[in-house]
């Protein structure tokens, strides 16, 4: 049996371990399923990590002699075989079911891991398939599986087709464990492309962003198109929904400002200005309509887009990893996604000099924003979003929410990047409130 300390040491050292700032007290294996008994043996472990206050999180491990069987290409191939075969593997406390969507033939040869992921582990096969293994598990269907299936069934083309998934149903919980989808070969993600073209070719990029706006708008129109599916049907906002939004964002601002560390000089421009930010939020949330709420992408930024063969593909529908599954499944205004991508334009403009040593043209961000919004307004179903100044204000509310979320994330994970959300917050404080 795997020792408690060994599990804790392994899990807490992983990039995908989400609670690095918390103190882990205990761990235990809540279920262990043999996926293959023959050598090389392959086991699936559900591991509970308990914090000092007694709350816990559950993680998926795939183990052979090591706790990281996904590092071995033979082992990951086995997972794909099981999805293809629709295997069903019973364990002590539950069953793992593998489910193919449509046939994908041929032997898998080459497998390579994808680097630098936040909350899961992905492996690419022969540049054709990509298997994404969700690490942190929560009860219920993962939004990524839910949205990919919905978008596929409703004919939205700008996604990487779903080929299958595997899931656990057991005493402890029902949870999605992983998905298999088409790997978009020869593509470059929007983030890299933005940075690579910042010096020369910026115009090409900026004009292609208009298309990204259209694709996003049409994604939202599709997501809000089915009034028969209770999980997706668009809903009118209630009278107090704007109040709920205000309260939610306001509390995030308050809590982030409460936790600002004293020893980070990059925070100086916003230090002590929490009340000012909250006041700004109150001004912005004085608005008329808020449009409708729908299921959205949930964590939309340039890194979740791919540019391939002259068009955009949208990826990663899991939602923000730090939020709970019911929270990620909540219907929100589609403008929340729009705000996410606008914030990432701002990130790119700052990251250009930082990562590539290239200064973007002075109006790079402004033009990128304008192009995106042009395309978006044209493609999105109009009843989903408010009009005129209300749209601008609501968008600013979500941008503020996003910048505050980024601030917390960077403080915990990438202190060098703290100044980007800081600059964003300062800029929002200085802007005129749309009227």
């Amino acid at each position, binding site marked *: 049996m795997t020792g408690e300390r060994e599990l804790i040491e392994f899990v807490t050292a992983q990039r995908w371990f989400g609670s690095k700032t918390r103190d882990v007290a205990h761990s235990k294996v809540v279920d262990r399923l043999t996926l293959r008994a023959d050598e090389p043996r392959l086991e699936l472990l559900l591991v509970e990590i308990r914090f000092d206050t007694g709350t816990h999180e559950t993680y998926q491990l795939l183990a052979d002699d090591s706790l990281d069987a996904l590092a071995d290409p033979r082992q990951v191939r086995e997972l794909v075989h099981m999805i293809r075969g629709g295997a069903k593997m019973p364990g002590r406390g539950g069953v793992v079911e593998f*489910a193919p969507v449509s046939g994908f033939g041929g032997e898998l040869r080459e497998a390579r891991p994808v680097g630098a992921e936040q909350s899961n582990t992905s492996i690419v096969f022969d540049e054709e398939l990509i298997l994404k293994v969700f690490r942190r598990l929560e*009860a219920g269907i993962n939004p990524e599986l839910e949205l990919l299936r919905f978008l596929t069934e409703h004919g939205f083309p700008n996604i990487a087709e779903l080929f299958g998934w595997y899931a656990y149903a057991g005493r402890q919980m*029902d949870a999605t464990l992983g998905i298999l989808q088409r790997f978009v070969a020869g593509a470059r993600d929007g983030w890299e492309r933005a940075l690579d073209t910042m010096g020369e070719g910026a115009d090409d990029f900026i004009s292609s962003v208009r298309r990204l706006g259209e694709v996003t708008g049409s994604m939202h129109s599709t997501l809000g198109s089915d009034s028969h599916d209770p*999980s997706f049907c668009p809903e009118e906002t209630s009278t*107090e929904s704007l109040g*709920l939004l205000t309260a939610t964002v306001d509390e995030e601002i308050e809590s982030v400002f409460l936790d600002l560390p004293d020893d980070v000089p990059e925070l100086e421009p916003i230090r002590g200005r929490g009340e000012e930010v909250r006041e700004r939020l109150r001004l912005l949330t004085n608005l008329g309509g808020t449009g409708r709420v729908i299921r959205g992408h949930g964590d939309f930024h340039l890194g979740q887009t791919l540019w391939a063969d002259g068009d955009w593909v949208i990826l990663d529908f899991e939602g923000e990893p730090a939020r709970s599954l*019911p929270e990620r499944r909540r219907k929100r205004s589609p403008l929340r996604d729009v705000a996410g991508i606008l914030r990432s334009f701002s990130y790119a403009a700052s990251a250009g000099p930082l990562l590539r040593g290239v200064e973007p043209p002075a109006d790079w961000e402004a033009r990128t924003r304008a192009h995106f919004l042009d395309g978006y307004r044209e493609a999105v179903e109009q009843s989903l979003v408010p009009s005129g100044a209300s749209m601008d204000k609501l968008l600013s509310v979500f941008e503020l929410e996003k910048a505050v979320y980024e601030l917390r994330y960077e403080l915990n994970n990438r202190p060098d990047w703290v100044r980007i959300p800081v600059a964003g917050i300062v800029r929002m404080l200085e802007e005129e409130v749309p009227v």
Partner: protein
Amino acid sequence: MSITEPSNWFERDPLWFKKAVFYEIHLRGFYDGNDDGSGDFRGLAEKLDYLQWLGVDCLWLLPPYPSPLRDGGYDISDFFGIHPDYGSTDDFKYFVDQAHQRGMRVISDLVMNHTSADHPWFQESRTDPAGPYGDWYVWSDDDTRWSEARIIFLDTEPSNWTWDPVRGQYYWHRFFSHQPDLNYDNPEVQEQMLNVLRFWLDLGLDGFRLDAVPYLYERDGTNGENLPETHAFLKRVRAEVDARYTDRVLLAEANQWPADVVQYFGEGDECHMAFHFPVMPRMFMAVRREDALPMVEILESTPSIPEGTQWGLFLRNHDELTLEMVTDDERDYLYDEYAKDPRMKLNLGIRRRLASLLDNGRDEIQLMHAVLFSLPGSPVLYYGDEIGMGDNIFLGDRDGVRTPMQWTGDRNGGFSRADFQQLYLPPLMDPVYGFQAVNVEAQLRQPNSLLRWIHRLIALRKDHPVFGLGTYEALRPENPRIFAHVRTYEDDVVLCVHNLARSAQAVELDLSRWQGSVPEEMFGRTRFPAIGELPYLLTLAPRGFFWFQLRKDEGE
């Protein structure tokens, strides 16, 4: 169940109810989804985003079954349906599923003791004594039998027996005369009640609040409360639930002294939860007398309960603030302090809401919530108390505390788009508690509102399972105005200090066992000086409180 369409949105946790915050909903008064003046399941489903935001874990519904509504639905005329005012069984299922998807569970009131006199079983029983339902109720020719049993609804009922001219016999009823008691000595009644439980659990309900459980059986020479036969039946109910379902909860309403109430936990094989009635009036007494002793004492005299069981704690609910579980002197005191107008009294209790009981004092409302949330047990909030709604003592019976939820400052308080005259009860419109002054929408937007504070309190409690799972240990400082105790669970140690006085207080606490630990205030995460050898000195604002997490000093 299929893996891609999970019906289970929860991680398995047989003890979920110990960590949960409950929220009691008067369905009729929550939100009107079809503009007929009365709340319903469709309306409630529309408000789930609010409840999800609020952070409550489990919704407790007052009885949603068909009923002539002569006792707020506790007079059930069909155990297998939904009252048409509230919608259909499909609406109910939709609501439960939507609540589950948002991480909230749902329990519902169930009255096993009696039915409405309109129930077909009773109608059959009175017209056909020899028929299949003839023995389903408690009939007698003698209305002096079991005279030891007290009358509960003193204000309306002269006797527990009522003459039925149709059958020509008396029937037994512990509550209103229109609520005849079922005869649990009849095995068919027992069997049918188990069918009722299974029916709702199969529809996805997460459990029941079992109304009026102490009175199921009658026996000569007893007061007819807490009888061994009653416990035996409840054990049978529990065994049935455990055998077929996971993570469900049975919450007993037994308005009794702690020593009698603990019987309802059995040896962990009866009810999962029971309300702790006596602690609640003593909280009101403590805050008025500025004295922690009534609370410390009642908690001390509360027996320990089996593992896997939990107290349900509350400040107010849909009934009167019941004063059955206090001494006569204490009752006189509470009447004097909290029911200055005789209209505020009902039976042995006070029919007012939390905010008006506390003269709308914000500090007092927060202090009472802090005490409630810090005690060993799961707190149960009553709809509307999170925004400090008031009551209307000019409405009859307990209707004064069951007025429409106040969502906005708009017409009908945003509760319904129906004509005002059509509303099941008028919303509060007075200048202090009326919907224009007190509503969800305004309090959501106001950072310092009571609602926003309660929201933070709930979030804080949920971050610390210690409040639901931990041990409780009273500290008894010399200053009697301070209610202080320590909760401990695994590595989490929480110190709760409440000032019950209207004036600022200083207190010295003996924390020598935690010497070296650093108290970190839990709302603002401010670190206080480390605990040393000397008594720990704290000063508290009037009606103020501190909760500290005692952190082992690891440097920074």
